[in-house]
């Protein structure tokens, strides 16, 4: 197992470097006149490109880490990242890392609740569908799953807002409500957005659980378990479930990409101030340093998430480790 972990850690290194390089390069795509525009917009009453002094341009270039050649910039940026210095926001002049960590709690709660909900919806539906294949419950489950894959999360969110405001006359609490201080208000704020986020990945989870269960139910050891007289219940719970869940765990891992993207949409719809909405404001206000930090940190989360998924997979299925 340790050899497997070591091997996976080593293959992670080039991925992280590529990811770091890509998030770094993304910002170098910004056309050069952006700096001029930035100077012009903040450059006092006279404005205009003509009145800009070289000094100010240099200062901005320095703030943005745009001094020197691209490889030099990359090394300097990586060095900063290693020391925890991701650069300062273009707008607020605060540390971008600090702005990220300050808001990350909201997104973590949203993401965790979404993952839990998606498993709680997707796995039972998938099992029911597989056990009653080609009957009414199966069709219903499959319809729900394919709707989950097809209905955009912003549409589901809009429908939820309409439903709650028009039918239930309910308004979502706003502001920061910490779960440990006020769990009831916090849950009122988070359950519906988390459900909206969970719906699509529940569809994926359901379909995979169903396929995997159908596959397992056809195996010899299930027939053996039946043959030696175990009850259907025991066969399902003891023999089928454990084996069928292995691929499902991987899909939960891959859903992370979707959860991060979806959190931008859902946080915007439900006025949650997490890192998703931070990313959106940074995009709309062209805060490139903040975006660079966010993209890198998101990617890092994804790379680590993939690693954990692979390791879990390796623990659960020894064939993977030696494959």
């Amino acid at each position, binding site marked *: 197992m340790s050899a497997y972990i070591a091997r996976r850690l080593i293959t992670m290194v080039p991925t992280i470097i590529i990811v770091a390089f*890509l998030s770094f390069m993304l910002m170098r795509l910004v056309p050069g006149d952006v700096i001029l525009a930035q100077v012009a917009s903040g450059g006092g009453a006279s404005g205009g490109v003509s009145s800009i002094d070289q000094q100010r341009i240099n200062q901005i270039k320095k703030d943005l880490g745009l001094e020197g050649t691209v490889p030099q910039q990359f090394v300097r940026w990586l060095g900063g990242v290693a020391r925890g210095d991701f650069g300062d926001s273009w707008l607020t002049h605060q540390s971008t890392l600090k702005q990220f960590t300050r808001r990350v709690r909201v997104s973590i709660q949203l993401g965790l609740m979404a993952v839990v909900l998606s498993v709680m919806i997707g796995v039972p539906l998938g099992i029911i569908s597989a056990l009653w294949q080609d009957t009414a419950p199966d069709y219903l489950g499959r319809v729900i799953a394919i709707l989950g894959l097809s209905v955009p999360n912003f549409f589901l969110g809009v429908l939820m807002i309409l439903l709650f405001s028009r039918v239930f006359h309910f308004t979502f609490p706003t502001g920061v409500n910490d779960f440990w201080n006020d769990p009831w208000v916090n849950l009122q704020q988070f359950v519906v957005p988390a459900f909206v986020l969970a719906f699509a990945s529940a569809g994926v989870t359901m*379909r995979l659980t169903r396929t995997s269960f159908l596959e397992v139910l056809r195996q010899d050891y299930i027939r053996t378990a039946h043959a030696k007289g175990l009850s259907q219940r025991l066969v399902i719970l003891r023999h089928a479930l454990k084996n069928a869940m292995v691929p499902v765990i991987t899909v939960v891992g891959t859903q992370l990409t979707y959860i991060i993207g979806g959190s*931008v*949409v859902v946080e915007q719809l439900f006025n949650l101030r997490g890192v998703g909405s931070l990313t*959106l404001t940074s995009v709309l206000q062209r805060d490139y340093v903040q975006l660079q930090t966010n*993209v890198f940190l998101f990617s890092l989360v994804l790379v680590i998430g*993939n690693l954990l998924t692979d390791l879990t997979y390796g623990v659960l299925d020894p064939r993977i480790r030696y494959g």
Partner: protein
Amino acid sequence: MAQSPLALPAVEQPSSVVRGQRWGRRALRLAGKKPLGTISLIVLTVITVFCVLAPIVAPYAWDDLFTGPKLAGPTREGSHYFGTDQTGRDLYSRVLYGGRITLATSFTATAGAMVVAILLGVLSGYVLGLYDLMFQRVSDGVQALPGLVILMVVAAVFRQNRWAVVAALTILAAPGAGRVLRAQALVLRNQPYVEAARVVGASHMRILLRHILPNLAPLMIILFTVAIGSNMLVLTALAFLGVIDPSTPDWGSMLNTAGQQYLVVAPWMAIFPDAAISLSVLGFNLLGDALRDVLDPRLRGST
């Protein structure tokens, strides 16, 4: 033409007619077996035709102001089937025109991604070696990126330019399809008929074009159908967030700020474009499932 049951058919019918009939009959039989896929195909065709023919079909232009009362609900009066928005623009016309953009961008991004996936993935599975290793590592890297966030940044950098976002989506979507094609190309290159072709001296080019690519075609069709749905979701989500230029409407941007502002007063402003997205993506997903069952039974039920 009467003939004894033992006699061989003397004259073959013109082959094109036979083939045409066979094709038609096969298509009909498949349609009977896969009703959901067939319905999806019909619905998608109708949506596409209406959107493409929007200048003819739509009662108004997408930017015609005050075609009727403001914020009116769906009504047959003045052909406002989907109602009107806050400046009295006809939403039915806007949904049709918006569909042109949404369908065109989704199609372009997916087609581009397939071309990149074929060029890189199939080649990688066929050539192997260092090239394959690099392909896999770079794919890992690209797939580890948070897609939607990257596209948002691209939209910011290129000043809300829609086609820059489409180009970026092409690159981001390519590795997923590329890996599936690579795996299949890896299987195909070791098939006896490819070895046979190699033995008789066929060039790599010929093997790729005549033996590998045709056998990948069913897989490509499946990948394309499923990918176009998910790409449409991504592109409309970006437009919904308002990071893509909203001056010409598409299905996503129609519920951006205006749609959200008037959500409670005029929910039809959000519901019709959203329903159009959902229906199209549902159509592509169901069609993809049906095609998967028909074209590649081994993949049945996988996600």
